[in-house]
């Protein structure tokens, strides 16, 4: 087959929409002012930022003062968890945090740091074999000193969606704050914070055809947090540092484009995803879909291929022009089994044998067909290689 370049790693990042780039361009050299400055140049930048904030509130169904602009998803997670937990404990509310084993490291490691260095305690809820947190276990885990629950909206490796509304109902009942990392869900799932019932929500622009290096944290009015990066009183004292005017403008534009056209986008993504899943699962034996069959991101397909090293599979796909990723992916040849798959009950060997393919707005049927053939050929080659090498 003729080599074709097929990008199926949209969960890693997406190309910036040219309309987004166009919206950003004036804010580099023309309207370059610092939004904190008092003069007209500053005012111009400030107006652009506040317009962007307004645009975003329409999509999140929130108030402008509830949006904190950050450098991206990881910073938003850090700010939400460390910033909130520090204040809550100082106010004598407790020091217990609840989370799940399928979180992004920005959540997991921030909580672990609070446990290791700052005397907090944590409970990691169990997940089922499809990657969903059990609702009952959350209720059981809540204690008098519980201050915060942080559960991912959609997991990055397996694409499973969490039952956020039901989880948030429980935390509300017990007056525990609820944060969600919505980085993977942004651009595809509803971000209406009233519907979801969350108190804090992290987003990153480059996952929905916006620029890299900009994100936001939604913080419900009345939730107190201290900045994890201290300094000037930007973003109402919650995030120090000169605001990234072009980035913020770009993020708002990207969100606006995503949500004005959401139904059509989701339909296309899900169609491409389903063709990919069907083609790969029917292609050969000992391949499984990981994560939830229906409650999953429209863009997201993830697999486990028995006896196939995920890293080698990526290498073979790369040589064929197909870009994917793996939960055990590692550039230094020292793969660790995917912690997410282990939490779902997969054994070590299977947790080293995963592949994630995430489709995008520009993914075509030809791309999907090519990718199915490339995966099929690569998996077959690698299974044959296993037997060659073992026998020598």
């Amino acid at each position, binding site marked *: 087959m003729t080599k074709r370049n097929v990008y199926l790693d949209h969960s890693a990042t997406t190309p910036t929409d040219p309309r987004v780039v166009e919206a950003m361009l004036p804010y580099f050299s023309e309207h370059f002012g610092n939004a904190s400055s008092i003069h007209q140049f500053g005012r111009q930048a400030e107006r652009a930022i506040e317009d962007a904030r307004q645009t975003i509130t329409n999509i999140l169904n929130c108030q402008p003062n509830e949006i904190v602009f950050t450098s991206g998803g990881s910073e938003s997670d850090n700010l939400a968890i460390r910033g909130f937990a520090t204040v809550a404990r100082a106010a004598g509310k407790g020091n217990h945090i609840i989370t799940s084993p399928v979180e992004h490291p920005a959540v997991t490691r921030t909580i672990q740091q609070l446990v290791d260095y700052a005397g907090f305690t944590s409970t990691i809820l169990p997940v089922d074999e499809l990657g969903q947190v059990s609702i009952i276990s959350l209720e059981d885990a809540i204690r008098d000193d519980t201050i915060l629950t942080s559960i991912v909206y959609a997991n990055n490796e397996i694409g499973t969606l969490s039952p956020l509304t039901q989880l948030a109902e429980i935390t509300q009942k017990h007056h525990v704050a609820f944060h969600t990392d919505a980085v993977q869900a942004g651009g595809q799932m509803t971000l209406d914070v009233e519907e979801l019932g969350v108190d804090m929500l992290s987003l990153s622009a480059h996952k929905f055809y916006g620029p890299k290096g900009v994100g936001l944290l939604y913080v419900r009015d009345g939730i107190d947090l201290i900045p994890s990066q201290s300094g000037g009183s930007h973003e109402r004292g919650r995030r120090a540092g000169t605001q990234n005017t072009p980035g913020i403008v770009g993020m708002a534009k990207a969100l606006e484009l995503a949500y004005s056209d959401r139904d059509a986008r989701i339909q296309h993504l899900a169609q491409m995803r389903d063709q990919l899943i069907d083609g790969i699962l029917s292609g050969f034996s000992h391949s499984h879909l990981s994560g939830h069959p229906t409650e999953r991101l429209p863009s997201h397909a993830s697999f486990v291929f028995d006896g196939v090293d995920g890293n080698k599979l990526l290498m073979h796909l790369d*040589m064929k022009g197909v870009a994917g990723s793996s939960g055990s992916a590692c550039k*230094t040849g020292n793969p660790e089994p995917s912690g997410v798959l282990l939490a779902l009950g997969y054994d070590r060997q299977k947790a080293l044998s995963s592949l994630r393919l995430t489709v995008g707005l520009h993914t075509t049927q030809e791309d999907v067909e090519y990718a199915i053939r490339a995966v099929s050929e690569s998996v077959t080659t690698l299974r044959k290689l296993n037997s060659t090498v073992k026998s*020598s």
Partner: protein
Amino acid sequence: MTSVDKRVVVAMSGGVDSSVAAALLVEQGYEVIGMMMRLWSDEAMGGADHNRCCTPEQMADAERIANHLGIPFYVLDTKDVFRATVVEYFINGHRQGITPNPCMECNRHIRFDYLLNNALALDADYLATGHYARIHQAESGKFVLKSGIDDNKDQSYVLSVMGQEQLSQTLFPVGEYPKHEVRALAAKFGLRVESKKDSQDLCFLGKNDYRDFLEVHAPEIMQPGPIVFRDGTQIGEHHGLANYTIGQRKGLGLSYKDPLYVIAMNPYRNALIVGTRDQLGKDELVATRFNWVSDEAPVGESFAAQVKIRYKAKAQPANVTVRSESEIHVRFDELQRDITPGQGAVVYDGEICLGGGIIQSADVAN
């Protein structure tokens, strides 16, 4: 730039030789893929470090060079197979009282088997490495392994494990150059390569001494035992056979009228056998697991050749008798002082490497 429409996986280490090898192949128009093996080391051992062949710095260097050359770069997880073959061989060799040569074993099982097969699976036509050796095809169609142009750098000794199929799928781009020209080529290609000191230590030991390594991985062989003469008379006690090597004089802690040397080891009795200088030299050896580069063992033949018994030794004139498909007998023209069981005995006809085997213990040879 010409295109040869062939795909090559080049084994990169971040060092000058493999980097220049990659650059030469790119220049010659090959489709080049950089690959580095992640090898095993016991990172849990006190003071242990990464495997010396793939430290994070070396990986970063190799990746930077690959980016500079505009080729893809991957790291291949080779830890388990390396542990199961090379490291196991090293430990077992010491258990048997020999001084194993893991580098030959690595070329046999890792580089020209595991890595080569992984390269071929990527639809590569060749695997290339930065070794100083040459592969030429004779008129008969047979592939011939020759020592590198640069005699001081020649690595054919550790490549003597290769056969025809492997040679037909392998390229040694720097084997045709002396080292100083390779350095000049690195400069010409704009490769910023740190010149690292060649270390004699085994890569998987990290910062550990091999004795410390064996203390952890084969404590049973680090037991004290008798030091005896050939006739069995005990003269002292040793600290574990793996601490000694054939020809060693210092550190035995013996007092005798003449200087004493380690002349053999008997792992079954855990005995270190010593003798006087005249007992040390030998003019014969038997090598087994012998690999013929031509794939054809001239069984029954006897011929004059040159034989190398250590990586850095000079090939010595000898008569070689081929006893079977896998065993040869070597009689040297002159006494050799350091015939060490476990090391390779590699047979040359001038610059042509005919093959290599493993030197057997003297008791087996006699």
